[in-house]
């Protein structure tokens, strides 16, 4: 991994000289802004972590490795999708590398484990990961969250199902762990609140090699629609076997966006994903992400998925935070206030932050997977504007 050069320019030297005599802000301008990123570069989320890092790097390159005229140094650490390793890395970034800001994280367990550590260290953190609790009981004054919560996707999926197919009997199937329980739970609660019928709920272990038994059971249920959450290799196997068992086309498939992730899943499943509906805060066809999609494509990587966009957006938010705080985002109360005062324009669209919990308010898109020039593309068919997590009220 290459670290961005520290440029010793005349400006920097002058800044250093000035720092001895002038006020504190001048010193802050001269010193590079150190950003620590924790993401999964090995383990089950390795591909996602590489995307997240790639998104962030792209933004840094576009910004000339400087935010608000201050040079930026990015240090990326691997958490292996294991909370204990993530926490150790965070402590290293805080204690030894002396970073100014922390960001990143894919695995919700890592995010929750980091919560107390960064709060105790009073470290400004742009924490990704999507467990509902991060916007609720685990919200922290030192954490801003420029990404979705699981509730945002689960509840909008229920609303959409109710809009298009009112009265449909929906069976659910999901990986049996925290995220799956949240997505399906929020879906079912919202859907039943709208008067919908929920049929059987299937749970499968994370990392299921064979979905045959589940698909046969779903086929025997004959529901109108199925709501699913699977991610990564589980999503790929599920969708391919969904088609192999001829359920594609017979039963309407609605999923969380991760199940049809543009980068991680769609290239591997091909037309098995065709026609799949999903709710997501990311879509390569969303107007707000057009510029990013083009820039990402120019690096030769195809269409971006959730985590490359998330990495990029996280960078955009940090850049805006640096600009609005006059180059010194570590002045946290001021930075936070500046982000609460006005929304940030990002590749996820207009992003205001909820002052109650630092959670982003996001547009949630309904994507349909369509064939565009032979490639599967998540195409926006509807948008729920500015969805806000119930936060502490939930």
């Amino acid at each position: 991994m290459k670290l961005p050069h520290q440029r010793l320019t005349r400006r920097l030297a002058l800044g250093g000289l000035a720092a001895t005599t002038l006020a504190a802000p001048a010193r802050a301008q001269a010193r590079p802004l150190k950003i620590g990123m924790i993401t999964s570069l090995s383990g089950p989320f390795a591909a996602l972590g590489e995307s997240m890092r790639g998104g962030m790097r792209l933004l840094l390159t576009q910004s000339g490795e400087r935010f608000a005229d201050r040079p930026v140094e990015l240090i990326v650490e691997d958490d292996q999708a294991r909370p204990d390793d993530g926490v150790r890395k965070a402590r290293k970034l805080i204690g030894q590398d002396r970073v100014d800001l922390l960001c990143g994280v894919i695995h919700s367990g890592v995010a929750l484990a980091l919560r107390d550590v960064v709060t105790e260290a009073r470290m400004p953190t742009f924490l990704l990961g999507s467990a509902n609790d991060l916007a609720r009981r685990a919200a922290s004054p030192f954490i801003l969250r420029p990404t979705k919560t699981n509730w945002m996707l689960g509840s909008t999926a229920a609303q959409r199902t109710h809009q298009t197919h009112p009265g449909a009997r929906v069976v659910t199937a999901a990986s049996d762990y925290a995220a799956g329980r949240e997505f399906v739970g929020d879906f079912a609660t919202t859907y039943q609140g709208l008067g919908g019928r929920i049929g059987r709920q299937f749970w499968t272990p994370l990392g299921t090699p064979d979905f045959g038994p589940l698909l046969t059971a779903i086929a025997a249920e004959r529901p109108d629609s199925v709501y699913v959450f699977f991610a990564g290799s589980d999503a790929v196997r599920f969708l391919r076997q969904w088609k192999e068992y001829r359920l594609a086309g017979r039963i309407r498939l609605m999923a969380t966006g991760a199940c049809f992730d543009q980068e991680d899943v769609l290239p591997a499943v091909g037309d098995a994903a065709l026609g799949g509906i999903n709710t997501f805060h990311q879509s390569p066809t969303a107007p707000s992400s057009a510029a990013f999609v083009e820039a990402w494509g120019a690096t030769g990587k195809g269409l971006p998925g959730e985590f490359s966009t998330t990495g990029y957006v996280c960078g955009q938010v940090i850049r805006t935070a640096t600009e609005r705080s006059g180059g010194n985002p570590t002045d946290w109360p001021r930075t936070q206030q500046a982000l609460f005062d006005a929304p940030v324009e990002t590749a996820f669209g207009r992003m205001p932050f909820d002052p109650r919990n630092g959670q982003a308010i996001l547009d949630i898109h309904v994507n349909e997977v369509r064939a565009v020039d032979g490639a599967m593309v998540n195409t926006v068919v509807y948008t729920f504007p500015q969805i806000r997590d119930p936060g502490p009220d939930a």
Partner: protein
Amino acid sequence: MPDALGYGAVQTLNALSFSALLLLNGLGLSVVLSLMNFVNLAHGSFFLLGSYVAIFWLGSGAPWWLAFPAAFLAAGLAGLLLDRFPFRRFYARPHLMQVLLTYGLSLIFADLMRWGIGAQILTPELPDMLKGVVFIGDMPFPIFRLFLIGAGTVLGLALWLLLDRTIWGAVLRAAVTDRGIVETLGIDTRRVFTVVLVLSAGLGGLSGALGAGMLAAYPGLDEEVLLLALVTVVVGGLGSFGGSVAGALVVGFTLTFSKVWLPEFANLAAFGALVLLLLVRPAGIVAPALRRL
């Protein structure tokens, strides 16, 4: 449940196809274990290598059925090289040292494959003739899975014939029982063992090629299939041929029907059942008469 019969039949076929995959996956491991008393935890790497070879082969437009021999040869070649160094020095060492060496190697191979191929999930483009589906009652069942069941049966039979019914198999079994005597007959047993390891690695690659259609391929799959293979072989009873078949069937049916009946506690129930089985039969289902423990 509108069609209980069809439902039951398809779930049984699901279990059979998964068992076939387990058998293919376990056979390679079982061959070296039973014939050479060598524990190869790098076996999952052969599987993943075979998957990748098959996926790239099928994507290249070459005749699809050649993908399987290609995967066999690629993994077999890897096995040949490993036999030269460092496996050969470990054939006579205790299991513990073999476990450590091969586990360490599997870490290296995992990272090398990720380095070369990347972390993304890949799936094979199956030929049209395997993409169809048959209906049992009115429940669909994919033809590809029938192909897996067939492949498992044919390969299992072929291997059994080779080891049990040919002169070569006899030499091999003799070399295991008394290496010295076989050497005095003018047979180079080192070469015999090399052939067994290449065969085992090739089987691993071949099963990876076949399994890719069901499991896809990505970093970490090597570890997952290795665990399944180990459980299969151990439950079956360390390496007797019938044991592997029995192990694959027991593990396949346990894992499938625990998902059908107790979906939320599927793994817990399945693991518990397997532990119980090993408690009742501490040497596996089919325990060979003579084993150095």
